[in-house]
Every structure is written in C-alpha cells, then in structure tokens.
C-alpha cells in the first residue's frame, strides 16, 4: 500500500488543490482523460460534503484525503473531522432530478448521486466524529455507464 495523503483546511478554497493532486496521481497511473474528469467531480463532491457538513468552526476543521493506488484501481478516502456525520443511508436515497415540472425540482442533493454515477464503488462510513467517504475507480476496465 503506497498511500499518498493530503490534508486541507475544511474550506471550499482548497478543494481545487485536491483536484490538482488527483489529476497528477491519476495521470501517472494512465487513467483516461474522461475517467480523471469523473474522479475529479466525485472527489470534489466528497469534499463539498465535508465542508458543508463539517465542523462549524472553519479555522479548526480539516479534511484528510488519502489516495491509494493499486495495480488496477485507485481508491480515494475522504475523511472529515466534523461533528455532523452523514447518514449512512444517503447512498440509498441518492437520485437524479425527477421527471417533474420545473417548479417541483429540488435544488440540492445531487452530490452523492453524482459520486455513485461517476465511480465504480462508493461507501459512506460514519466515524466517531465525522464521516468517511470511500471512492474507487477501476483502471482499464470497460466502463459500466
């Protein structure tokens, strides 16, 4: 296991650095451009959740990101130290926008759905004082979507 770890303040201004880091790692592993773009969105969604639901004091919270390359996959773990844990049933409830009138559309709630749509495996684990999101994408495997 050769994990590459990155820790950022739990603030939106630092999420682009996670994407830049991911880009470097995934490029080195020879992921296709489109797969890298998918992972960039998914990992940003996990960080968005950590920022939005994380610790109320932005000067204290951090997000820990661990990139774990394997021969045929990349696993990305996003941990936040926030007090509010994401419910573990969010994965089951995630859905795209319904086929409804515009007035019936909800504004939020697409982040988890996008993670599922863009990655091969998604796990949400409740931690003692936060949430861990585990994202996995296979390398050189025919895309399922």
């Amino acid at each position, binding site marked *: 296991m050769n994990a590459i770890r990155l820790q950022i303040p739990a603030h*939106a*201004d630092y*999420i*682009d650095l996670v*994407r*830049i880091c991911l*880009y470097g790692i995934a490029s080195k592993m020879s992921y296709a451009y*489109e797969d890298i*773009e998918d992972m*960039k*969105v998914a990992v*940003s*969604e996990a960080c*968005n959740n950590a*920022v*939005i639901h994380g610790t109320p004091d932005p000067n204290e919270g951090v997000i820990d990101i661990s990139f774990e390359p394997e021969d045929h996959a990349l696993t990305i773990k996003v941990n936040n130290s926030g007090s509010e844990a994401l419910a573990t049933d969010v994965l089951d409830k995630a859905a*795209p*926008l*319904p*086929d409804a009138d*515009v*007035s019936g*559309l*909800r*504004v*939020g709630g*697409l*982040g988890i*759905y*996008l993670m599922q*749509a*863009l990655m091969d495996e998604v796990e949400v684990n409740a931690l003692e004082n936060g949430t861990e999101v585990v994202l996995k994408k296979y390398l050189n495997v025919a895309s399922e979507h």
Partner: protein
Amino acid sequence: MKAEQFQVVQEETTNQYILHVIGELDLSVVPQLRAALEPVMNRTEKALVLNLKQLKYIDSTGIGIIVSVLKLRDELKAPFFVSDIPPAIKRLFDLTGISRYLIEGTEAQA
C-alpha cells in the same frame, strides 16, 4: 493542467442578458456566481442566457445554482437559455437529469 481564474463576464444585447461563465465552477466560487446573477435574474424584459463555452469544470453545487435559476425564471415566466455547453459538462447535465429542463439557445436566437 492550468488553473484558470473563475470569472463571469456580463454582456447585454437588445433582448438578452448573457453571462459568460468562465473557468472552474465549484463550491468556492458560488458566492461570485450568485453575485453576478443577482442583478439580472429577476429582469423579465430580456432573456437570460448562460454561455458555458469556457466552463472547464462543474459539480453539483454549480448544477444546483442552475436549477435554482430555472425555477426562478419559470416562476417569473421569463425566458432562460443555456448555450455552448462543452461535451464534458453536457455529460454531467445528462447524468443529473438537468438536461431535459434546459433550453439550449444560441446568441442569435430568442
């Protein structure tokens, strides 16, 4: 990968307000996009157009803003178009289901 500063450039024609959304639209620039939309999104005398030609990145936060604009313009019965959607962005619009609500307009139309 070159980081491009996010910016919104407003253009006004005789019948449209066009906002060119440029760069990476993520959570950190949500306030900036909202501020750019604020003066024009309630104006019903002209169509509102989001030009996405130079948009490099979007996620659920940006898509959420577009949904909120869609709802507002629908409520106001005022025209709203999205133009020049890059293929990578279009894919996310299709995945989230927002595509079916978006009317693609060119700047010559409407």
